[in-house]
């Protein structure tokens, strides 16, 4: 259980093994003893879950008032004057006995068990257990590991029925898909028939299982604990910045484990974060520079590649040069590329967001919340952004905890119901394109009217929740790439009138927040400053703001932009308007700095291979603005090198000099231009490894744009295109155990709308917008409101991006039977 009590609160005194110890009121005895340096063995207790007292391993003698008696220390809160004996003969006999019981049925196949060597059951049997067993009877037998999901195997023989995995699934993840079944000796953990444990968080159960009953496919039989080395780092799979340990053997990363960072992920990871290392190990990685000669990409030397790319950059008029992407990079590399673009090459056409984000001035201008502030007990959380369960897994777990355990009120302001919906108190689903109107109605003083498809009653109820005592936090992002960012920006600006409101950005793309802080956006300079206000005193810094990704792609398609540098970006897959991205890249000279070949690098004239996060030191800025360290664990494949080195060399080749030879140089330069990052350097990042440093500082807010959607006819649906956890993104596509998990593209309609079509589930329909038309299978979904057509983004099978015209406030589509 989390301890939300402030340190300052009065403490109670307990006596542990004759020593007086100060404990926090309400704290569990097992925690109080551990903080005082007395470790009590345990299996079922986990400090981030409610105690259940299943395993009885934590029995200690406690003075009950009627003499000393055995009590499970994970179930009793401390009380003033409590006397505990963790070392008595009776305690030891009890612990010894519990282990003997647990081992009655345990198969002792430690040599083939992935947990062997790091197993709490092994360790505690050695430390507290009997040397021998008196049980000679045959052990119970089950079929050896059965897959309970695509990534998790269950070996029921090894299970000691501690209830950790099942509690995690139910209490923490909210996916109660595994459960105890049977009684007595036959009790087993299992899934329900025909329903796999397909939770986005299933990997956590493998980490917390105190035996080897649950194992993960990507790590299965890959190594033993004694040949792993580890280093603590930050996950870059999404923008939460969960802390992880990176474990490797023989220069190959074999697994990521969650690390309990109190302000961030509490030790949990989404499966996307946990298994993303597979992609970095992939054979598909680009290992050497390539240049196009005669139609094909051929390997070339670094020297030749840098010289050629440097020439191309130098010889392009800065106004006809653009840099797209950079969210994949570390802060240091982002700074280096910003300086290359804005300081050396003299172009401001730099955008780390691919048209699926929010205006940088807005994200940096709004008062920011930390995750802890958003999850404050009794607070109100307005979810106006993507489904956190799909895009920001670890944040979802924190938000769910806040709603279920800490009395936070969640107001969903999303185009359709999200994974957080079942924990939300209010469900407001504005029609796509009209979110700003609803936001204005939420903060208006006048009596509520039906707005944007939401009833006046629902608005009134949500207003009451917002006006409550607790702090209000808006989780802000783009729920749908088919709705313009301007709508969400206007909505956010309306909500700033709520007293004390704070915003937690839900942009999900890796280190996008670092990119914004490092100035990888038109008009910005490093340190949350603008071209006008910034202190970066670079020779060629342009004076006027450049183009966004959408504008750059449009310009390239029109022939007024010649060269595009892609920094780990794949606009063809990720930019909302697929068609525009295709035309733009086909028309321009494209240089890609990437880990993988993608749909976009097919258009590249040169590719420079970059090092993955686990292969280079650096730092990460999460959605709170928290800067934490990324640590190198293995060497990059082939001759791939860290992005900041590539930037520094390109600067040289283009006739400039970044003055960067080490990460310390980068931080010295950042400190010089960014007051917001004052005090951060490699040493302070090392010192604050776990929780990092939160960057402060805001920009002036942009003005509202006042957009409203095109009026559609009565037959039209509003399109919603939203991200799922599993899609055809480069990282997932190159992870063998996650690649097939993309759900596939289907159109989801409200059941009434679905029935009106008179089709079977899965039948093909034609969806057409002003810009294109695709045929898709159709499914009814209770999560989607009437008049809305919802499609997952980038599933790799059917391209829905052709329906979207960038810049449209909302996308109206028609849905017709058949594939005519």
């Amino acid at each position, binding site marked *: 259980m989390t301890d939300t009590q402030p340190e300052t609160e009065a403490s109670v005194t307990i006596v542990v093994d004759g020593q007086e110890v100060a404990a926090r009121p309400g704290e569990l005895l097992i925690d109080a003893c551990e903080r005082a340096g007395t470790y009590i063995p345990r299996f079922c207790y986990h400090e981030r879950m409610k105690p259940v007292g299943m395993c009885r391993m934590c029995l200690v003698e406690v003075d009950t008032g009627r003499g000393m008696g055995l009590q499970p220390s994970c179930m009793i809160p401390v009380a003033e004057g409590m006397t505990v004996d963790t070392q008595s003969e009776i305690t030891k006999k009890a612990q010894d006995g519990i282990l003997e019981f647990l081992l009655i049925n345990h198969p002792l*196949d430690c040599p*083939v068990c992935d947990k*062997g060597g790091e197993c709490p059951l092994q360790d505690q049997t050695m430390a507290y257990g009997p040397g*021998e067993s008196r049980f000679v009877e045959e052990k119970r037998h089950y079929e050896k590991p059965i897959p309970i999901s695509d990534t998790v195997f269950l070996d029921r023989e090894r299970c000691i029925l501690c209830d950790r995995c099942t509690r995690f699934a139910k209490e923490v993840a909210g996916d109660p898909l595994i459960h105890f079944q049977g009684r007595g000796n036959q009790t087993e953990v299992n899934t329900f028939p025909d329903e796999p444990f397909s939770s986005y968080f299933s990997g956590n159960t493998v980490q917390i299982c105190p035996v080897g009953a649950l194992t993960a496919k990507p790590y*299965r*039989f*890959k*190594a033993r604990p*004694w*040949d792993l080395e580890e280093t603590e780092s930050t996950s870059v799979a999404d923008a939460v910045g969960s802390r992880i340990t990176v474990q490797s053997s023989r220069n190959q990363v074999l697994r990521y484990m969650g690390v309990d960072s109190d302000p961030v992920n509490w030790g949990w990871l989404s499966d996307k974060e946990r298994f993303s290392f597979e992609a970095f190990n992939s054979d598909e990685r680009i290992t050497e520079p390539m240049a196009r000669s005669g139609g094909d990409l051929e390997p070339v030397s670094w020297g030749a590649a840098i010289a050629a790319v440097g020439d191309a950059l130098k010889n392009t008029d800065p106004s006809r040069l653009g840099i797209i992407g950079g969210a994949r990079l570390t802060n240091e590399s982002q700074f280096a590329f910003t300086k290359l673009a804005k300081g050396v090459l003299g172009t401001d056409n730099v955008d780390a967001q691919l048209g699926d984000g929010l205006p940088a001035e807005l994200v940096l201008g709004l008062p920011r919340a930390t995750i802890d502030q958003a999850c404050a007990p009794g607070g109100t959380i307005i979810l106006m952004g993507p489904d956190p369960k799909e895009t920001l897994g670890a944040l979802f777990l924190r938000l769910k905890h806040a709603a279920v355990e800490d009395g936070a009120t969640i107001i969903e302001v999303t185009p359709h119901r999200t994974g957080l919906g079942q924990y939300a108190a209010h469900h407001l689903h504005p029609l796509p394109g009209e979110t700003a109107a609803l936001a204005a109605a939420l903060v208006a003083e006048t009596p509520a009217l039906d707005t944007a498809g939401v009833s006046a009653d629902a608005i009134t109820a949500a207003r009451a929740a917002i006006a409550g005592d607790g702090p209000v936090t808006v989780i802000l992002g783009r729920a749908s790439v088919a709705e313009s960012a301007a709508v969400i920006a206007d909505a956010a600006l309306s909500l700033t009138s709520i007293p004390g409101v704070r915003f937690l950005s839900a942009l999900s793309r890796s280190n996008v927040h670092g990119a914004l802080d490092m100035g990888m956006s038109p008009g910005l300079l490093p340190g949350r400053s603008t071209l006008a206000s910034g202190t970066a005193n670079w020779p060629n810094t342009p004076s006027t703001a450049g183009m966004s990704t959408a504008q750059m792609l449009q310009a390239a398609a029109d022939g007024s932009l010649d060269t595009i540098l892609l920094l780990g970006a794949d606009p063809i897959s990720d930019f909302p308007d697929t068609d525009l991205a295709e035309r733009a890249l086909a028309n321009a000279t494209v240089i890609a700095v990437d880990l993988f070949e993608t749909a976009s690098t097919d258009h590249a004239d040169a590719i420079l291979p970059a090092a993955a996060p686990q292969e280079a030191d650096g730092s990460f800025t999460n959605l709170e603005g928290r800067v934490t360290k990324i640590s190198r664990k293995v060497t990059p494949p082939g001759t791939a090198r860290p992005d900041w080195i590539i930037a520094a060399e390109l600067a040289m080749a283009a006739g400039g000099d970044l003055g960067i030879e080490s990460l310390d140089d980068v931080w010295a330069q950042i400190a010089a231009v960014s007051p917001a990052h004052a005090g951060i350097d490699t040493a302070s990042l090392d010192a604050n490894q776990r929780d990092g440093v939160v960057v402060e500082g805001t920009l002036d807010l942009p003005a509202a744009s006042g957009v409203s959607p095109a009026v559609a006819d009565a037959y039209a649906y509003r399109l919603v295109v939203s991200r799922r956890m599993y899609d055809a993104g480069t990282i997932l596509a190159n992870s063998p155990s996650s690649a097939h998990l993309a759900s596939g593209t289907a159109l989801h309609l409200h059941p009434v709308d679905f029935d009106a079509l008179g089709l079977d589930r899965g039948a093909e329909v034609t969806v057409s917008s002003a810009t294109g038309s695709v045929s898709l299978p159709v499914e009814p979904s209770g999560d989607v409101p009437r008049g809305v057509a919802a499609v997952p983004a980038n599933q790799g099978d059917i391209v829905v991006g052709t329906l979207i015209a960038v810049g449209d406030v909302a996308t109206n589509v028609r849905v017709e039977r058949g594939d005519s």
Partner: protein
Amino acid sequence: MGYLQGFAVTFKKLTEDRVTTEYPEQKRPKADRLHGRHVLNRYEDGMEKCIGCELCAGVCPANCIYVRGKDNPDGDPVSPGERYGFIYEINYLRCIHCDMCVEACPTEAITESKLFEFSFTNRADAIYTKNELLVDDDGMPQHLPWEDWRPGEDEMTSGWMRATASSGNAAYEGKVAWSGELGYGVRAPEIGQSQDAPPADTSDSGAH
């Protein structure tokens, strides 16, 4: 005259039995507990005993064993159970023939022969892989071209000592016992050093 005494010693010795042998044409019997190059054993049905557990690699003081396990292929298992030794390598430039690996192995997959007469001309040859280490279909060590095997030598195997339960037989718990085995099955350990009598029931010691 002193040198005549020297000749006397020489002539006397000429008539005595010689203690040197014409090695390598002639070899002397090897000691019971001599530790030579390893073999990876099989069960009688041809399945490999190694389960890829890396315990031998973990215990090796010379750090010369490299093992990686893998799931047994569906329908065509290499070893009984879930896991088999997918990669198994011993670097003989580093091995000190201490037999700790043999002692650590839970399945008696790795044992040592008494062969020490092997040499290499490059470093890569000194790393024995599963191809070299695995016993043949008769359970006997492979006779590699650069190894000097004489008839009958492959019958000999190194003895090893185990202070814990040998062959997984609880009757040996805590008893110091010798075991020697090569090829199929598991031989019952011999109580060698301690005063203990062999445990009464060792009949299931081959029950792997």
